[in-house]
């Protein structure tokens, strides 16, 4: 038993990597489709967007990069489909250098989505009138304050160098205060600054989708209702996809939902690994203690 414990405690890390690899791969190949329900934090974000009237304007800040596509990009798609389905106009922007092109790609993908191929879901959407992607600006909080004063001063052109002043959307929406809702999709620490530099200053409600790394630290903002909703991590995104009905919209199981089985498998493995490691650790401590007493 002692020898077995030593083997377990000194297990080559590559065996652990192999088990993690299998825990991720096998559920993707053989989905179990474990059902799940939505948490209140996610429902609050979804319901707020659902309650907006057609023609309302939502500002989506894509503050993430390629490294968090599974958590953030999938949420971006779900949110865009929800907005377009309800004729809500979207202004998207980016505060993170690495994600500048992603915001553009995601917006085009949703606005020009075809299901089945050849049949556009939202044929009446027009760039510059119903949606626009402003691109990236350096400065973080400077940009938030800047759009609080004027969109066209802060973003004279959009991501593809088209003047904002020529877009009908910005004849009506001059500054952040004219927007009906802010949704921050973030992998870095910007949600907290959206609270103080944008939402509270301009009195515009704010919801957040964040990576799971930062989700736990944002609960105080959710409790104080400074975040109207909090969609945390891949699970939160999967819940949002379920609420939006992404499977019917895109004709396949959406990515975050599909990843939940693998997530379950890996989490159970890690929990079991921790329990087993602690068991043998305490067995070893007891054994060493007994040996010391005998000596």
């Amino acid at each position, binding site marked *: 038993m002692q020898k077995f414990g030593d083997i377990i405690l000194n297990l080559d*890390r590559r065996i*652990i*990597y192999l*088990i*993690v*690899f299998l825990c*991720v791969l096998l559920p993707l190949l053989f989905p179990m489709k*474990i*059902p*799940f*329900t939505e*948490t209140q934090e996610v429902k609050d974000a979804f319901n707020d967007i659902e309650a907006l009237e057609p023609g309302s304007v939502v500002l989506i800040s894509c503050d993430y*990069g*390629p*490294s968090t596509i599974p958590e953030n990009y999938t949420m971006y798609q779900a949110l865009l489909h929800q907005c377009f389905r309800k004729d809500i106009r979207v202004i998207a922007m980016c505060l993170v*250098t*690495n994600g*500048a*092109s992603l915001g*553009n790609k995601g917006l085009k993908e949703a606005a020009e989505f075809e299901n089945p191929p050849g049949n556009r879901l939202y044929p009446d959407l027009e760039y510059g009138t119903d949606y626009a992607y402003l691109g990236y*600006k*350096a*400065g*973080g909080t*400077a*940009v938030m*304050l*800047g*759009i*609080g*004063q*004027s969109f066209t*001063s*802060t973003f004279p052109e959009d*991501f*593809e*160098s088209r003047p904002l002043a020529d877009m009908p959307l910005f004849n009506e929406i001059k500054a952040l205060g004219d927007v009906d809702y802010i949704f921050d999709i973030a992998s870095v620490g910007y949600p907290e600054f959206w609270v103080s530099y944008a939402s509270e200053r301009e009195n515009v409600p704010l919801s957040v989708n964040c990576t*799971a790394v930062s989700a*736990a*630290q*944002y*609960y*105080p903002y*959710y*409790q104080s209702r400074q975040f109207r909703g909090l969609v945390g*991590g891949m*699970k939160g995104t999967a819940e949002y996809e379920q609420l939006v009905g992404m499977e019917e919209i895109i004709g396949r199981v959406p990515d975050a939902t599909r990843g*939940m*089985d693998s997530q*379950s498998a*890996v*989490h*159970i493995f*890690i*929990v079991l*690994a*921790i329990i087993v*490691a*602690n068991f043998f*650790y305490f067995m070893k401590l007891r054994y060493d203690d007994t040996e010391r007493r005998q000596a």
Partner: protein
Amino acid sequence: MQFMKRQLPVVIAFLAGLLLWAQFYIPSRLSQQALETFTSSWAIILAGAALILGILSAIQHHWNKVRYKKPGHAYSAITLFCFAVVVIVGWLPWHYVGVTNMGHIKDGSVFDWIFQNMFIPLDATMFSLLAFYIASAAFRAFRARSFEATALLISGVIVMIGRVPLGEMLAFDINGTEISFTSVAGWILNNPNTAAQRGILLGVLLSIVAISLRIMFGIERTYMGGGD
């Protein structure tokens, strides 16, 4: 000259801070215009310049490695080559010679192809390695050595199980009420977690105010860098 190099920047920091602080309380048109000019134009240009400085410093570092053939200079050469390729396809004014899919960052350009097929997989895969490391680290290092570590461990395990679909299936009936890992995880996140995070947050916010005041009054001068 000492005044120009050391004291004048501190005076500028103080005056800029004071004016923009006062702006918060003064809703006049001039005040709004001053804020708009500073935030939507000047600050963005300065932030962009600072980020370009970062890129130039990195290029300078790798150029020196290649020039003086320091260890790893071959990899630095690859870095510089890739940098040059991306800048050439994404920045140079190719439209002057009639090439339309280069010299910009739009959808469908060569730059966009590099982003989609090289940058995204590299960035995403770099971070995905962490999944393996966290599993290995949890197995090797996560021990309930003390009461505090045990509290951390139990909370972590409950949230790990509770925040996956399987957590909803693992439920127990206590006095007619169904309690699942998901509901317990939710309670932990909304109650003790919120309390502790808020305590930390309040401390952080006071620190932000304190450091801002230190910067404005010239006590904190690290942003000026070293030298005379």
